[in-house]
C-alpha cells in the first residue's frame, strides 16, 4: 500500500516501473522454455527474445530506481519486492501453456510493445526515450516472429489450428488492460487492432470473441501465477540476501 501511494506521487517512477516489470516478467516466463521448446531454433528464438526483454527490464528498472532516488537499482527492484508491489500487466504473467498459448501471448504483447516503444522513443523524457529507441528495434523482431507463427499454426494442421484458437481465446481477456485509459495506452488501440486483424486474416483465424477484460496488474492485483513465478525467480536472493557472483 505504501508503495502505491509513493508511486502515485511519482508518475515517472511508476511509468518506468510498469515498463520494466512487463519486460522482466515476460522475460522470466520465456526463460522457462529454455531446453523445452519444440525445436532447437525455437528454443534459441524464445531464449533470445527473453534475453532482449531482460535487457530492457534492466534499463527501465535502473531508471525507475534512479528516479525514485532511494538507492534501489534493477536488481533490488527485481529481487526484493513482493507480488503486491509488481506493476506488470496480467498478460505477461500468464503461464506458458502449450507452444500456441505462448505464441498467442507474445503476438498480442509484442505488437503492443512495439507501438508503445515507438511512442516512448519520441517522448520528452530523454532517458526513457533512449531506452525506447533501442528497444523498438529488438521488439520489431519479436512481433514478426510471433506473427509468423500465428499464421503457421492458424493456417497449419487441424491440431495446430485448434491450439492456436484456444491460445488466443485464453489470452484475449488480458488485452483491455494494455489500453486502459488510466495506466495504459488507449491511443494505440486502433493501430494495434489493425495489425492483429491483418495477421489473423492471413492465418484464416477469426478475432476471438469479446470477453470482459481482466485488469488489476497495474495496481498490484495479480493472478495467482505471479507469486509462483517470483518464488522461483527470487529464490536465491531470498535465501541468501545480497549474494553476488
Amino acid at each position, binding site marked *: 500500500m505504501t508503495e502505491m501511494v509513493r508511486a502515485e506521487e511519482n508518475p515517472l517512477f511508476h511509468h518506468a516501473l510498469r515498463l520494466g516489470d512487463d519486460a522482466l516478467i515476460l522475460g522470466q516466463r520465456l526463460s522457462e522454455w529454455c531446453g523445452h521448446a519444440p525445436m532447437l531454433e525455437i528454443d534459441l528464438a524464445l531464449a533470445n527474445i527473453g*534475453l532482449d526483454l531482460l535487457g530492457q527490464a534492466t534499463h527501465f528498472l535502473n531508471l525507475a530506481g534512479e528516479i525514485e532516488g532511494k538507492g534501489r537499482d534493477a536488481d533490488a527492484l527485481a529481487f526484493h519486492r513482493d507480488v503486491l508491489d509488481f506493476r506488470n500487466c496480467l498478460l505477461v504473467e500468464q503461464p506458458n501453456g502449450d507452444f500456441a498459448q505462448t505464441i498467442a501471448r507474445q503476438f498480442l504483447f509484442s505488437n503492443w510493445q512495439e507501438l508503445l516503444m515507438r511512442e516512448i522513443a519520441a517522448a520528452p523524457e530523454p532517458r526513457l526515450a533512449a531506452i525506447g529507441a533501442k528497444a523498438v528495434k529488438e521488439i520489431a523482431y519479436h512481433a514478426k516472429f510471433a506473427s509468423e507463427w500465428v499464421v503457421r499454426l492458424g493456417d497449419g494442421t487441424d491440431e495446430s489450428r485448434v491450439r492456436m484458437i484456444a491460445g488466443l481465446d485464453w489470452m484475449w481477456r488480458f488485452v483491455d488492460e494494455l489500453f486502459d485509459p488510466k495506466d495504459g495506452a488507449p491511443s494505440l488501440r486502433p493501430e494495434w487492432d489493425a495489425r492483429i486483424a491483418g495477421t489473423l486474416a492471413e492465418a484464416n483465424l477469426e478475432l476471438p470473441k469479446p470477453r470482459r477484460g481482466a485488469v488489476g496488474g497495474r495496481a498490484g492485483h495479480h493472478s495467482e501465477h505471479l507469486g509462483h513465478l517470483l518464488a522461483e525467480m527470487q529464490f536465491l536472493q531470498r535465501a541468501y540476501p545480497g549474494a553476488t557472483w
Partner: protein
Amino acid sequence: MSAVVELSLKDRILEILSQVPDPEIPCVSVVDLGIVREVRGNTLVITPTYTGCPATIAIEHDIRAALDRAGLSRIKIETTLSPPWTTNWISDEGRAKLRAYGIAPPVKGAAKHSLRETPAECPRCGSAHTEEISRFGSTPCKALHRCLDCREPFDRFKCH
C-alpha cells in the same frame, strides 16, 4: 596545444581498443563493431549492441583492463544508449574480418530494412543462393542461414 595533446590521446585510446576483441566474436575488435563511440576529454563513451547482450559487461571490463594496462586509469568509461547502436557502424575492416571468420556481415546501410533483408552471401563459397533457417541464432546479433549451393550452414550478422 591542448587540442594536439587531446587528438593524440584519442588516437592512442583507439589504438589500444582496436586490440580488444569482442568476447563472443573474437575476430573483431570493439572498435570494428562500433561499440566505441567517442573520446571526450578524459571520458571514453561506449554503447551496448543489444540491450540484453550478455557480453556488454564483459566488454566494459575488458576495455577497463586494457586502459589500465596502458597506464590510462584516469580515463573514465561512460555508457550511452542514444543514438542506438546500428550495424551501419561496423567498419569495412570489421566486415571483412567477419566474412573471413565465417560470418556473413550485415548489409551496409540496410538497418532500416532489417526485417526484409536480401539473401545472405555464403561466407564460404560466395553464393547468394542461401536461405534463412532461423532469425535467432547463437548470440542476439546473429541469425542462422544455410547455403543452398555448398550446403554449409552459417551465421549472419543481422542488420540492426
